[in-house]
């Protein structure tokens, strides 16, 4: 019936790992951050675009990966993004708690930014520890909403969901479990009529209206 070879293992088990945090981080490191340099330098012609000129004491915008470099070499201080502020974050947290749906985050990579900047520049960011806690709170509130939504999604066996306002790292957090579970539900549904003569075997019909948006 079936020929098995050494290839089997490789083929069957190809792919159980997922995009890991590091790769989402990689994309997030492009976010533009303001630094205050402690040195002078003319414009740097990076492939991704020009940065600078750098004048000691004058704030300049650079990609986050560069900001981190400068900070680590003590060639600059990092300015926290506007939203990394206790009052704004407290308000965000309240809104997130009140809202049934996911609120819009100030940055599509808020968690990556928070993590990287608070890790490498906690001395430049006022009240860094409080900020860290409150961002983690927001993350946790959103995570628990995600869990509820995912459960609902699977219960209804929906074939579609809207995930507006979820950030990349949050989406990454339900990978691979959610898509994989939906794949299997799809397989069970799709194999329903296989090999069965067109006799009506339906006692169970799953509708999949595009209704249960995540945010509903």
């Amino acid at each position, binding site marked *: 019936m*079936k*020929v098995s*070879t050494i*290839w089997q293992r490789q*083929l069957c088990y*190809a792919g159980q790992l997922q*995009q890991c945090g590091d*790769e989402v981080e*990689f*994309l997030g*490191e492009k976010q533009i951050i303001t630094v205050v340099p402690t040195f002078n*330098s003319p414009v*740097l012609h*990076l*492939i*991704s*675009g020009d940065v600078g000129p750098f004048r000691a004491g004058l704030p300049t915008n650079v990609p986050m*990966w*560069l900001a981190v*470099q400068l900070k680590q*070499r003590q*060639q600059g201080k990092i300015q926290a993004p506007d939203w990394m502020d206790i009052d704004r974050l407290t308000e965000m947290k309240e809104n997130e708690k009140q809202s049934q749906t996911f609120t819009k985050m100030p940055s599509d990579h808020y968690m990556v930014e928070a993590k990287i900047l608070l890790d490498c520049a906690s001395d430049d960011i006022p009240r860094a520890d409080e900020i860290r806690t409150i961002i983690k709170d927001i993350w946790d509130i959103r995570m628990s909403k995600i869990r509820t939504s995912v459960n609902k999604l699977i219960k209804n066996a929906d*074939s*579609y*969901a*809207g*995930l*507006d*306002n*979820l950030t*990349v790292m949050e*989406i990454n957090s339900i*990978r691979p479990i*959610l*898509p994989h579970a*939906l*794949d299997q*539900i*799809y*397989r069970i*549904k*799709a194999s*329903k*009529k296989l090999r069965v003569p067109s006799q009506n075997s*339906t006692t169970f*019909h*799953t509708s*999949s*209206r*595009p209704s249960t948006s*995540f945010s509903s």
Partner: protein
Amino acid sequence: MDEAAIEELELSDAESFEEVQLTAAQVIEMMEEAWVNEKFAPEILPHKMEVVDCLLGQIAYMEENLQSLPSTDFKKSIHQLEVDRLRFLVSSYLRTRLEKIETYVTHILKQEQQRHESKEDLYLSKQELKFAKEIAEALKQNFDGLVSFYPGLPLEEWVSQPVQPNMHSFVFLKSKKDVNEVVIDDGSIATEGESDLVDFREGAQILIAYSSVAGLLKKGDVKLI
């Protein structure tokens, strides 16, 4: 495919190359998008070698310039860091494609043959096609070798049932423009002709079966996330 076919493929490959004026930053963006798309799409996507070549050109040019800088120059390490990041991007993209080619080689070659016959653009680049054929050849030799040990095994059966990507796997996507009436593939065959439809607003983030959006993805109307 025979040798003549390969040559023809190479020709059509060259013809499909288009000249477009882009900034390096735009090229990087395209590369990032292609990388993430390739990572999450179950099947191999049409290759973006023009983007890869363009970016590699930028990288090579930069590296050449860097050689003239003294290694103590702080600018050098920053440029080097950027180059390393971009290299990672390109190689991860190429690697993902190679992995798909290895996994689905028979299936992919069959599809490429069909595309070739119907004069469509190929999904694999010249080098990838060569790689695919080598893998296919090695596999065939492996099986031929096995059969000589165990005569009577159904030799061609594995070719007729190649390993295929699961086109219905669920993917996360972001819509790059308003798209109307996307047919939701939910696996139920019963509802023929009355499938559910959905509209994507620009910027909407969606979880849906890949088969519903494969066309949109290749057109560039949506991107995977």
